[in-house]
């Protein structure tokens, strides 16, 4: 069997993959020995495959592994948590109610909206009339211009209070200042499905909140500014 250059180019990828039959392989081997141009194509193609196949060609953003590890750790904790044991969080919820003044909080707990993300961080001191933006199918609200807003064509503006009443949670990036507080009582959390917001944050709240209960709608409503 004799092959010409065009036939060789057409089969060169299969040749490298070892997916040509013995007869064609022998013919191509012979062709490469005598055709400098096709030998160049073969060597160059192998160079491409070897260089791009090197793991150094894949670079991940700085902190990628750390962010992933935190997110997985949170997810693992949530999965292994005995949610069915009401007594496990009745105590902290009761303490929370007492701390916050009782009735008003109890009302908000009873009537609050369903959160779009069940593992979201509550905000702290977010001005209720602050203008924020949300998008369809997302779970977080952002300051206008935030770099991680997805599906911008569906963007709409509303107040922070409205956003939280509708179940949206603060973006970990642009609302970061409202996720960090200075007092004791530390909870490390990260949204499980925040639609693109990165980074774990360590927060502590003036309100001591159990890890499992940070996304309680009523609690989040309470964490709005007092003049809400």
């Amino acid at each position: 069997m004799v092959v010409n250059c065009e036939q060789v180019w057409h089969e060169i990828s299969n040749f490298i993959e070892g997916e040509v039959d013995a007869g064609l392989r022998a013919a191509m081997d012979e062709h490469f020995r005598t055709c400098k141009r096709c030998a160049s194509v073969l060597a160059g193609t192998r160079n491409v495959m070897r260089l791009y196949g090197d793991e150094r060609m894949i670079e991940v953003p700085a902190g990628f592994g750390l962010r992933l590890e935190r997110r997985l750790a949170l997810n693992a904790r949530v999965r292994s948590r005995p949610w069915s044991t009401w007594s496990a969080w009745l105590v902290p919820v009761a303490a929370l109610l007492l701390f916050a003044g009782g009735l008003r909080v109890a009302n908000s707990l009873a009537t609050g909206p369903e959160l779009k993300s069940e593992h979201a961080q509550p905000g702290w001191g977010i001005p209720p009339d602050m203008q924020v933006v949300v998008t369809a199918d997302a779970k977080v609200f952002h300051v206008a211009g935030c770099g991680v807003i997805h599906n911008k064509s569906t963007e709409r503006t509303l107040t922070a209070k409205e956003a939280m009443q509708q179940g949206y949670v603060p973006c970990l990036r642009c609302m970061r200042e409202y996720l960090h507080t200075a007092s004791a009582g530390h909870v490390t959390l990260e949204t499980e499905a925040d639609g693109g917001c990165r980074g774990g944050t360590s927060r502590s709240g003036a309100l001591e909140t159990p890890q499992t209960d940070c996304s309680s709608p009523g609690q989040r409503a309470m964490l709005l500014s007092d003049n809400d």
Partner: protein
Amino acid sequence: MAELKVAVNNPTGTTREQDLIALVQDGQNELFYELVRPYERRVYAAALAILRNETDAEDVAQEAMLKAFANIRQFRAEARFSTWLIQITVNEALMRRRRERTVVMEGIDDRREEESDYAPRDFADWREIPSEVLERKEVRQKLAEALATLDRKYREVFVLRDMEQLNIQETAEALGISVASVKTRLLRARLMLRDLLAAGWEQGWFSRLPFEKGSKPW
């Protein structure tokens, strides 16, 4: 601590990865990151090849890892874990792209019929490029830029096959295309990249490499 547990519980000669999979399937969730850590780069690269946006790629890569974690009990040993992980990532990335409709922003070339008759353009003398060139960030950057110029359909196949090391069949299944299409696109992607890199040689990408004067690595 976790590593010790794995070593002690390995009387059957199974690999470390198999042990980790079994332990995570058995409920030791904290070991999952150790299981997927070796594949972080590949998962991210698969997402980036499809989405072409670093923020989206990281988000999708993380979502894919979480989905793998949630479904780890469904993983069966007859498949390679890395392939399973990459396929989840590709599915997530394709879903994200469909949702955000970025496909309409792709190049006109993507609408062309398959073409397998691409002819190489550069036939200069060649020799092997040492992989040490990849130590240089500017070389990696140039190679990444060359890859980014490929049309989506060629780039995706090339990344999954030649960077992620899926086989032809796995690549076809991951992208939902035929084996024949994978082969055709792969051939074209490799030859186009070869020409792009040959042109890069002319522009001095590898100018500090110890090649003999007058010869090219192609």
